[in-house]
């Protein structure tokens, strides 16, 4: 373990300290040290809150900023934020028009959000939730409610955040976020495991020469362990899994997001994207916008996720709206 660390127990708080200093033009502190808020928010709009475990940088705080999320609750590494942190995130996002809480489908997050929503209600804050479940590999098609949320959450935040910035009502904001996630599918391939700093050794294994197809952001096993393949074959697997689920058809327009899992060089992500682009073209799927980089990671895991979102005019408009966050900047 060769890490830049002080005491591993303090890593989240120390990361936040650095993050808030660097991005003081985009985010600001709140009364709760585990909740960050966007510095620039248009007055009088619906609040957009999110939250999740740490170790996925830029997610979640990296998507707090103008025209995206207003607040994010921060958990320990790979562990849901507390109900209290979610509640404070709702309070900090609320401007009297209600709050849309857009988060990922994990049992801890579900429980803590549920409790926080209940507590917020007692204070007169209306919170509506949208739960991301874009990870195709985590449950069969007919059991979509069980699927995890992964990098597709970024498209959900983008759509919901844009709708709120444009003055949408709470229902319109959650509908836009729901529409984005309903049209989004993702899959991940893991090449090496990751290690919780305080644990000090990986708690799952990916043997040299193999890859875990359908891996989750915490090393959850996916569809199968196969032999390590070349980039073209890897891309084919990913496109087949993702495009086969929605289904994406000839003539569809999509947004593509290829994210590294943390330790894979960005150079390799472009290689992968090149292959994915060819395959989409073969299927007659038109790429409207694409994103390649480390958008949603898992500590120092090697590998990548592919996310596709099927677009219509509204989703295009929401995707195109300028945004200024640490993780995503569009002019």
């Amino acid at each position, binding site marked *: 373990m060769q890490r830049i660390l002080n005491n591993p127990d303090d890593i989240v708080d120390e990361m936040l300290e650095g993050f808030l200093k660097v991005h003081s033009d985009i985010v600001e502190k709140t009364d709760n040290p585990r909740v960050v808020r966007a510095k620039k928010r248009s007055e009088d709009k619906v609040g957009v809150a999110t939250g999740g475990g740490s170790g996925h940088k830029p997610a979640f705080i990296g998507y707090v900023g103008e025209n995206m999320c207003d607040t994010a609750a921060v*958990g*320990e590494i790979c562990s849901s934020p507390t109900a*209290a942190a979610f509640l404070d995130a709702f309070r900090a996002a609320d401007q009297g028009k209600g709050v849309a809480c857009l988060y990922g489908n994990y049992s801890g997050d579900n429980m803590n959000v*549920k409790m926080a929503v209940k507590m917020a209600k007692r204070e007169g804050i209306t919170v509506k939730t949208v739960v991301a479940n874009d990870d195709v590999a985590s449950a069969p098609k007919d059991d979509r409610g069980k699927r*995890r949320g992964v990098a597709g959450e970024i498209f959900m935040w983008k759509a919901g955040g844009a709708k709120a910035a444009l003055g949408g009502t709470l229902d319109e904001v959650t509908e836009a976020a729901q529409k984005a996630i309903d049209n989004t599918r993702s899959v991940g391939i893991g090449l090496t495991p990751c290690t*919780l700093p305080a644990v000090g050794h990986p708690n799952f294994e990916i043997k040299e020469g193999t890859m875990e197809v359908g891996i989750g952001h915490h090393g959850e*096993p996916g569809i199968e362990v196969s032999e390590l393949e070349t980039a073209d074959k890897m891309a084919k697997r990913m496109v087949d899994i993702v495009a086969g689920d929605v289904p994406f058809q000839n003539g569809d327009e999509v947004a593509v997001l290829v994210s590294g899992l943390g330790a894979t060089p960005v150079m390799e992500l472009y290689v992968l994207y090149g292959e994915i682009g060819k395959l989409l073209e073969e299927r007659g799927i038109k790429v409207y916008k694409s994103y390649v980089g480390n958008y949603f990671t898992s500590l120092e895991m090697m590998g990548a996720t592919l996310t596709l979102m099927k677009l219509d005019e509204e989703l295009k408009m929401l995707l195109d709206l300028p945004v200024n966050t640490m993780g995503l900047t569009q002019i």
Partner: protein
Amino acid sequence: MSIFRNKDGKSVVLNIVKAIQDNKAYLGEVDGLIGDGDHGMNMNKGFTLFEKRFADKEFTFSKGLYELGNILFSEIGGSMGPIYGTIFMDAGEAGEKFDEIGSKELSIMLQAGMDGLCEIVEARVGDKTLMDTLTPAVEALQNEEDFLTALQMMKTAAAKGRDSTKDMAARFGRSSRLGERSKGVLDAGAVSCCIILTAMADGIIERL
């Protein structure tokens, strides 16, 4: 019909804290096999936080449980914060009105904790979670009037419940992603729940 006084219960709560601290590494190992390996760390963090804040203060058994739950609930996230937070807070709340605690009172408290948990989780017996430990333990307590015997039976039932999770396939939480592959390993929550109930019983037995 032995009983202990609620106001003498501080040592019982601290006994639970110590048991979690002593088992930090073991819980991490168990969780690492099919979960993400942080169960020992998270539990230890929350229980130790309680110890730091309350070790020098006077508190009753029920108040101690409530405050412990409150710390877990508001400062430890993940799944364990709301799960154990709810159990301890609701159990503590249900025990506030008791000056003396025997098997009937303790079973009312633990039942309240379990009821609170059932409101927020769907898991029940057979799903490879701490429910497999908690449910039979509370039942054992309800079926016996003599407190000492009831506590022994609760310990036995908790251990048996814990062991029953070994051959189950997980349906909830992170290990559920493994489905059939989660068989052959104990559920970390069932293990920590057994540690807690055993330490609670032992702590009470010392007071009887």
